[in-house]
C-alpha cells in the first residue's frame, strides 16, 4: 500500500507516494532517477549504495522508505555544489580523480559519500590518518584499486580542507 512520504533529498524537499516497505535505494534510483547510488549486493556488505541519512552513512539497500519520513538524505549527486553555472566538486571527489582512486567507478559514489562525511565530520585526523581511513571506509568494498590510491586521496582531501 502506498503512502505519502515527505523527505529531503540533496537539500530539496520531496513528496512521494510510495510503499513504505520499498528500499530507499529503489526509491532513489527509480522514483527520483538518482542513479548515482549503486546496488552491488543488496545485503549491506559492499557499500556501493551508501547515502547519508540525517548526516550518517547508511546502506540504502537496508533502509525502508518509511524510515526516511521527515529526514534528510544526501546522495552522490548532492556532494558537489553549484557556484553560478559551475560545478564545484567536493574535495574528496576532486582528490579521487587526482589520485587515481576511481577505476571502474561502480563503488566510487558510495566511497565518495562515506569519505566526504568522514572528512566533513573531522574524523580523518590524528597521527595515523591512513589507518583511520581504513577503519572508517571498511564498509565499502572496492575490487579494482587495492584501496591504496583511495586512502591517499581521502587523506589528501582531509588535509586540503
Amino acid at each position: 500500500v502506498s503512502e505519502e512520504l515527505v523527505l529531503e533529498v540533496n537539500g530539496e524537499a520531496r513528496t512521494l507516494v510510495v510503499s513504505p516497505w520499498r528500499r530507499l535505494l529503489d526509491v532513489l534510483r527509480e522514483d527520483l532517477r538518482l542513479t548515482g547510488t549503486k546496488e552491488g549486493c543488496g545485503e549491506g556488505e559492499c557499500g556501493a549504495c551508501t547515502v547519508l541519512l540525517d548526516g550518517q552513512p547508511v546502506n540504502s539497500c537496508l533502509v525502508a522508505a518509511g524510515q526516511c519520513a521527515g529526514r534528510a538524505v544526501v546522495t552522490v549527486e548532492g556532494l558537489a555544489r553549484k557556484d553560478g553555472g559551475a560545478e564545484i566538486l567536493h574535495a574528496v571527489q576532486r582528490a579521487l580523480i587526482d589520485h587515481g582512486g576511481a577505476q571502474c567507478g561502480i563503488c566510487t559514489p558510495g566511497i565518495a559519500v562515506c569519505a566526504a562525511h568522514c572528512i566533513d565530520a573531522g574524523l580523518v585526523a590524528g597521527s595515523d590518518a591512513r589507518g583511520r581511513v581504513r577503519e572508517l571506509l571498511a564498509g565499502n568494498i572496492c575490487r579494482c584499486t587495492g584501496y591504496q590510491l583511495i586512502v591517499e586521496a581521502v587523506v589528501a582531501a582531509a588535509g586540503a580542507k
Partner: protein
Amino acid sequence: MELSEPVGEAVGRSLPRVDGVAKVTGRARYLDDVDAAGAWHGVTVRSTVAHADLDALELDPAFDWSQVVVVTAADIAAGGGKNLVALLEDDQPALVPVGGRIRHVDEAVALVAAPTRALAFAAAAAVRQRVTPRPAVLSIDDALAAVTVLHGADNVFKRFMIRKGHGDDAGLDAAFAAAARVVEGEYHTGAQEQMYIEPQAMLAWWDGATARVTGSMQCPFYVHKAMKALLGCEADGVVVSQTVTGGGFGGKEEYPSVIAAHAVLLARKAGRPVKILYDRDEDIAATTKRHPARVRHRLALDARGTPLAMDIDVVMDGGAYVTLSPVVLSRGVLHAAGPYKCPVVRIVGRVMATNHPPHGAFRGFGAPQTTFAYERQIDEAARMCGVDPLVYRRRHALRSGDTTATDQELTWSVGSDAVLDAVERVAGPPPVRDGTAAGGAALRRGRGLAFYFHGAGFTGSGEQRLAGRVTVALVADRDDGFRIEVRSSSTDIGQGAITTFTQIAAAAFGVDGSRVTVVDPSTEKVPDSGPTVASRTCMVVGALVERATRALRGRVDAAGGDPAALVAGGELVEHAQYEPPPGIHFDDATYTGAAYPVFGWAACLVDVAVDLDTGEVAIERCVHAVDVGKAINPVVVRGQIEGGTVQALGWALIEKIVYRDGKVANASMTNCIVPTFADTPELETLLVEVPYPYGPHGAKGVGEIPMDGPAAAVANAVGDALGCRFDAIPIAPEDVLAARPRWRLA
C-alpha cells in the same frame, strides 16, 4: 595551430582519468542506469541438480501467465538459430532442452520476462522441472578416476605436454637420477570469484530484423560471434555495444555471451526490450570462476642447489563445459616452470570435465595456479640448500639469452634483475619474530618472497590469428577545428584503457589529450581489435593506436600541416593491423618456441604476523616490484598493480568458494568475502621499466602479472613464521590452527 613533435608530453604522466568526473559524480551510466522505457525484466530458471536428464518443464497452472513471456530451447531452433554459446567448442547450450542433459547446478533451463522484476521472479518460481538425476563428478580426483564419464573417454577436456632438454620419459628419469636432492610438493589452489562490484547486466531489443544488445562486458565481438550462431544471422544482423562496465577481471570475458543470449531471446518473444540484471547471489552461484587446480611438482637439484630438472603435473577443474579451459590450461602450463634456468623440464597439463558450473577467465588465466606451485617449490629449494630466498632466486633467474621451458630464447626486455634489485633495495631487515597482538595474544612473524613472469598478449600465434585492427580518424570539430577519434573494440572496464589510448594518441599526433576521443565500443562502429584480455590492451592494441595515429600525423604533415583545413572535406582515417615482432614463432604441435612476444617480470615481498591463538594471518607489509616496460600513465599502472595484488592477497588468505553437491554454498557477499580497506596493508608499489621495443613507448602488459605471485609470497611468509609448509590456499585461520602439530617455533 602548431602541432608539437609527435613524441609526446602526454606519455609517462599521470593525467587524470578521462572518465574521472563522470565516475565521482555518479553520472557514469552503467547498464542498470540506462533509461530503458518499456523494458521488461528477464529472469533465468535454473537447474537445482548437478547432473540429470531434463525430462519436462511444466508451467504451474495456478499461476497467472497472461503477463509473462516464457522462452525455452525450442524457441531457438524455431527462430532459425543454434542452441549454443559459441566460443571454442560448441558444447554449451544457451538453454538446456527438454530431453537434454543438465550438467551443473544453476544451469539455465528456461527464461521468463515480465513487466516487473517481482512478477518475473514469481513466474520463474512457477516453472517446474522434472528431472532424472545421474551420478555427478564433483572433484578433480573423481574426474580423473573416470568412473562416471562426462566427456570423451576419460573426462579430459584438453591435454598439453611440454618437453625441454630430453626426448622421452626415460630421459627425464635419467636427469632425476643425477640429482643430489629432489624437492617435491603437491599444491592446491581454490576457485575464486571475480567479484566485480557491478553484477552481470544486459539489455536487448529488436530493431526490425536487427538484434541490439548492450551491457556490461569486456569483449563486444565475443558476444557478437555468439549471437550470430544463436540467431543464425549474418554479421549485420546483430549489433553489440558496451555500457560503462563496473569491473570484469575476466568474469565478463566469456560469460556475457550467455546473458546476452538470454536477453535477446526474451526480447524477440516479448516484442519489446528486455533487461536482465543478476542479483549478487545469482551472479556468484552461476557465473564462471577461477579454475581450482592441483599441481604436483618435482624439482631435481645438484649438490650446489642448481636446478637440473623439473617434472610438473598440472590438473585443473574445468567445470561442466569447455568454455575457455584449454586456453587457461595452456597459459598455466606455459608458466609452470617459472622464470628459472633449468635444462630439463617436463610439464603435463590436463583440464577435466566435472559437474561444477564452468570455470573460466580470471585475471592471470591459469598462471596464478602454476606460479603458486613453483614459487613454493623454489622457496623449499632455497631453504633446503640453506640459501637466502632472494639470493637463491637471483642465482637461478632467467636473463637475456636464456631459454624458457618452451626453448624460447629471451632476447629483449628481461626485467629479472631489475625487479629483484628493486625489492632488495627497500626490503630492510626481516620483521621482529615475536610480538603481542592488541588483545594480548602471541604473534609470530615471517617474511616471504616470490619472483615470477607473465607472458603479455595472446599465447603463441594467437595475436597473428586474431590480427586485431584499430582505426584512428581525423574528424572535423565545430568548436576546435579537428579531433582525433580512436576506434577499437577494446573496452575500458576500469583499468584505464580510454585514458591510456588518449595519451598514446595525443603523443603520437602531437596534441593535447583533450583533442582525442576514444569512441564507446559498438560492433557497428569499431573494428575488431580483439578482446580486452591477456594483458594486451595497452601493449598490443595501444601499439596499433600509436601506429595509426603516427600515420595520420604523417599525412597531415605531407599536406601542409594544418589538420583543420585538411579535414574540412571529410574525415581522414588510418588503419593499423597487428604484425608480430621479428623472430616470434611458436609451434602449436610441439609446444616449443616463442610462447609470448615478451614477458613482464615481478617480485613480491610480504611480511606477515600470525596470531597464535586465533590462527589469523595479518599482512603487515607488501612490497611489489613490477617491470611494466614503460608506464604510459604511472597512476593508472599503479592502480592495476595494486588491485591485482589485493585480489591475490585475498585468494591467499580469505577468498574461498565452497561447493556442496555441486552448488556454491556461500553465494553471497556475507560469506563469500573479499578484502576490505581494513584487511589490506599499505602497499609499496615499485614501477620498474625495462622497455619492450615493440610496445608503445616500450610498454608491455601489466593487467595480470600482479595476480600471479603474491599468494605464494604469503604462503612462504606464513611458512617462515611457523616453520612448516603451507601448500594449499586459502590459508584460513582454521588451516593455520589445524597445522599446529607441525609448527616449529624455535
